[in-house]
Structures are given as C-alpha cells and as structure tokens.
C-alpha cells in the first residue's frame, strides 16, 4: 500500500506536468483562435455575400436544400472594388500617405533615439520616460490637440496674422499635410522605442575602432551604426506603416473630405452605407496587402527574441 502511494502521486504529477502545459497553452490559444483568427474567416465569408435588407444585412452563403448544401459565392464585391476608381485610389493614397509618414517619423525619431541611447544614466531613463508618456495619454486627444493648432481660426494662423506675416489665414487643417502631422505625431513613440533598444545594445567600441582606423564620422555612421541598427529601423517602420495604412481617426479629424484613405472608406461603407459585404471585401483586400509587412514584422520579432535568449 505505502509503496504504491508515491508512484500514484508521481503519476499524478506527471499527468499534471503534461496537461498543465497544455492548460497553460490552451487558454490563450483558444481565446485568440476564437476572437482573433476565426473572425477573419467570417469576414472572408461575408465578403462573398450580397447586401440585403435583412437582419443581419447580408445574404446567406450556405443554404440547406434537400440534396445538400447550396453554396452561393458572389465575387461581385471584389469586381466592384476593382471597377470603381474610388477604392483603388483610396488604397494607393493610404499606402503613399503611410509610406511618406513612416519616412518622416524615421527621420525625426532616429536622431532622438540615438541621443537618448547616448545619454548618461538617469537622464536616459527620464528621456525614455518622456517618450513613453505621450503614448499613455489618449490617442484621440493627441489628434484633437492639432485641430486647435491647424484650424482656420487656429493658433498658427492667429500667430502669423498677428505678426503680419500673412494676411489671409492658411488652410492647413483638412489637408493631406495635416494628416502627415497627425500620423508622425501619434506614431513617433512607436518608432523611437525599437530604435532605442537596438542602438542601446550596440557595441560602442565598434564605432571607436572605425574612428581610430581613420574613418570619417559620417562614414563610420553609414558603415557601422546604420547597418547595425537595421532591425530597429525595420521594426519601428513596420510598427508605424502597418497601422497607419488602415488609420481612420486621423484622416477623419485632420484630413479634408477628399483625403481618401482605405480605413475611412471601410468605416463609411459600414456605418454610412450599411453595406457589410462591401466593407468586408475592403477589409480582405487591405489584409491581402498587409499580410507581407505583418509577416515581416513577426519574422523580425521572432529573430530578436531568439537573439535575446
């Protein structure tokens, strides 16, 4: 009896060891499957439906008829996206605006990240904190702050008019320029943080060696610092580029009525036109384009994770 007890206990422990692992993996796995992965399949399904005056407002894809399932797939939504120049130009516009904003964010963020990484001890953590702090304050309010600055009756116009530099108020809000400012402003911390973490880890002696060997500082930067910080540049750029392609709030609040961006188009199809199937096909088309940068981002993340260990 007493000799069997430990083996039973051991067996139980081994079971827990085996299934405990499954349990720990299982909870987040199931949650993300159900609420992240499966929803995309449903979007895909509904993008093949047609809009109907019903609740919910789309046609059924699968109908049960005596002999089996009848599948009605309708490619019309995608053909419609291709035939209407509005959608194509919204896609191209989003990609262009996101790409230009990413480059500006990189140009502002890189020297800042470099400066923070080279700062001394406690100053460095204060500066880093100052980069993170705006990220914690409301995104909506940070976009809103620029309305008051860029508006026709806004601060910049008031200042310039009072100084006599301009005689007519400049139109800055409701332009593409305002959208660039909005994206650069709100996404800057996302660029600085990954850049900082690669620059901080970098071995300074490599640059010193290059300088000692007679390399010009600018050349040392181009040949040593820049290539070594590539993972940070890529991670930061993708963190800015991918979400800003689908950005809705910034073009809606700062852009003009003809600043077409695909996130805004999707929103309008869904909320204003109540056309769920078209909104779904816009989402799928956006995803198809973003799959490559998203996979790239994940690849960088896993590589960094492996290097870190």
């Amino acid at each position, binding site marked *: 009896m007493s000799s069997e007890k430990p083996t039973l206990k051991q067996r139980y422990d081994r079971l827990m060891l085996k299934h405990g692992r499954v349990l720990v*993996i299982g909870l987040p796995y199931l949650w993300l499957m159900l609420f992240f992965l499966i929803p995309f399949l449903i979007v895909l399904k509904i993008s093949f439906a047609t809009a109907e005056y019903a609740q919910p407002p789309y046609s059924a894809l699968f109908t049960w008829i005596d002999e089996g399932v009848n599948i009605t797939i309708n490619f019309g939504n995608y053909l419609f996206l291709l035939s209407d120049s509005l959608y194509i130009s919204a896609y191209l516009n989003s990609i262009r605006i996101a790409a230009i904003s990413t480059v500006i964010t990189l140009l502002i963020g890189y020297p*800042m990240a470099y400066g923070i990484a*080279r700062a001394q001890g406690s100053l460095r953590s204060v500066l880093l904190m100052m980069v993170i702090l705006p990220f914690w304050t409301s995104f909506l*309010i940070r976009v809103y702050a620029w309305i*008051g600055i860029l508006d026709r009756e*806004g601060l910049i116009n008031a200042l310039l008019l009072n100084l006599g530099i301009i005689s007519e108020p400049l139109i800055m809000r409701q332009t593409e320029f305002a959208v660039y400012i909005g994206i650069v402003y709100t996404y800057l911390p996302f660029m600085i943080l990954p850049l900082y973490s690669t620059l901080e880890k970098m071995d300074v002696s490599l640059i010193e060696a290059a300088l000692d060997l007679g390399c010009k500082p600018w050349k040392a930067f181009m040949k040593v610092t820049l290539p070594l910080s590539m993972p940070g540049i890529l991670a930061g750029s993708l963190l800015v580029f991918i979400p800003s392609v689908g950005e809705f709030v910034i073009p809606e609040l700062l852009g003009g009525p003809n600043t077409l961006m695909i996130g805004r188009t999707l929103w309008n199809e869904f909320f204003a036109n109540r056309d769920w199937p078209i909104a779904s096909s816009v989402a799928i088309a956006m995803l198809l384009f973003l799959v490559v940068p998203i996979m790239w981002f994940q690849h960088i993340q896993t590589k960094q994770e492996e290097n870190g260990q």
Partner: protein
Amino acid sequence: MTGKRSTFLLSALVFGFAFLYLPILLVIIYSFNEGKLVTVWTGFSFKWYVSLFSNDGMIDAAWNSLRIGVMSATLALAVGTPAGLVMSRFGRFKSRTLFSGMVAAPLVMPEVITGLSLLLLFVTLEQLIGWPAGRGVTTIVIAHTTFCAAYVAVVVQSRLAGMDTSVEEAAMDLGAKPAKIFFVITLPMILPALLAGWLLSFTLSLDDLVIASFVAGPGSTTLPMKVFSSVRLGVSPEINALATLIILAVSVMIVISSLLILRSERARSRSMDQATPEN
C-alpha cells in the same frame, strides 16, 4: 567633430520633445480659458470644468469606459500572462508559429479590420448559439481583452526574457512542481510587468474609439465615442477640460507605478545581493 555631433543630437532631442509636448501643453492651457475661442485668451476660469461635470451624457460615457477598462485589463492579464509565459519559457511546440503569430498580429492590425471582424463574429455567434444576445458592454470587453492580451503577452515575455532562469531551474532540480515554481518564484518576479501590463491594457481600453464603435450597442457609448462625436465639429472647450483631467490622471498613475516598480526592483536587487556571496 564630436562637438558638432552632440549639438546635432541635442537639437534633435529639443525639437522632438517640443513637438511631442507643445500640443498637449496648449490643450491644458486653453482648458482654463474663459472664452470659447482657442485663439483669444479672455481670462482664467474653471467654467469648462463645471460644464463638463454637469454634462450627464459625458459622465455616463466615462463611467462605461472605466468599467470596461477595469474588466478588459483584468481579463487581458488572465489571457496574456500565460501567453507571454508560453512564448518565453515553453520552447518549441507544434503550431508555435501560429501561436506567436496570433500574439503579435493584434499589435499592428489596423483597428478597422479588428473591429469589423469581431462584430461579424458576434453577429454570427448570435445567429448560431444565441450568445452574445445583442451588443453592449460584454462585447466591448471581449474585443478589448483580445487586443490588450497581446500587449500583456509582449510585456510579460520581455520581462521573462531579461530574467535569470537559474532560480527556476534550481527549484525544478529540487523537485518543485511547475505550478508551485510559477506562483512562488516566477509570479513575484514578473509582478512589475503584470502591473505595467494591466495599466497599459486599462489605458488602451479607455482610449479605443474604432473597435468599440463597431462592437458597441445601444446604451454602451464609451467616452472616446462621445468625445469623437463632439470633436468632429471642431474645438470644444469642454473637451480641453476633459483632456486635461485625463492627462493629469495618467501622469499621476505613471509616476506612482514607476515608483512602485523602482522600489520592488531595489528590494529585489538588495535581496539578491544578500543571497549571493561576495566574490
């Protein structure tokens, strides 16, 4: 040459931080302006704060948002902590690529796509099994938990990656069970990360407009939805006052949490110093 470089870096930092902070500062200053216009300073006044607090719609929305934030942040911790643990301590397993993909993708997924896909899921589920019946606070909490859990997982994972595994290994060698190791050793060590993850999730939930707009129902208007509908028309002094209060709350929260993290870090390094013999 180095002088030139540091001048350049210094001016980049000054310009960058001015760019980050001036707009917020202006919102705070103008929240105390008596006049309705942003450009003209007519005098110091608290009147927009008074009118903010007598705006019932705004107060109801704020209450909704706080409730949703607390619930989502807590659930996100429950889902995200095991995810972070799996990513950093479980090595390779079948479908790990899919798992890490599902953890990382919500971080960059455009919000309109996440919002639309979750709404369609809820509608389909309601048709199939009758749950969730209608949309409201529950559906917003589920949606927020999903994307906040990804953030929690990343925070927990990076904390675990920077942590020495020797204590956990020693406990394992001495025959402690994995669950016990987690609760007695790992959990106390990642506590600062959990606090940071909870606060991050709470603020992300409090801040979200797009996803909430898709999955909200009647009676579950959140604060960002309310703010968005009034801001669409232009600057409103009441929103300046609200923004100031939010910024104040966030700053207080950040200072307190960083003090707590600093203190626990110091206590930990002190006990580590006592535990390791001098060499």
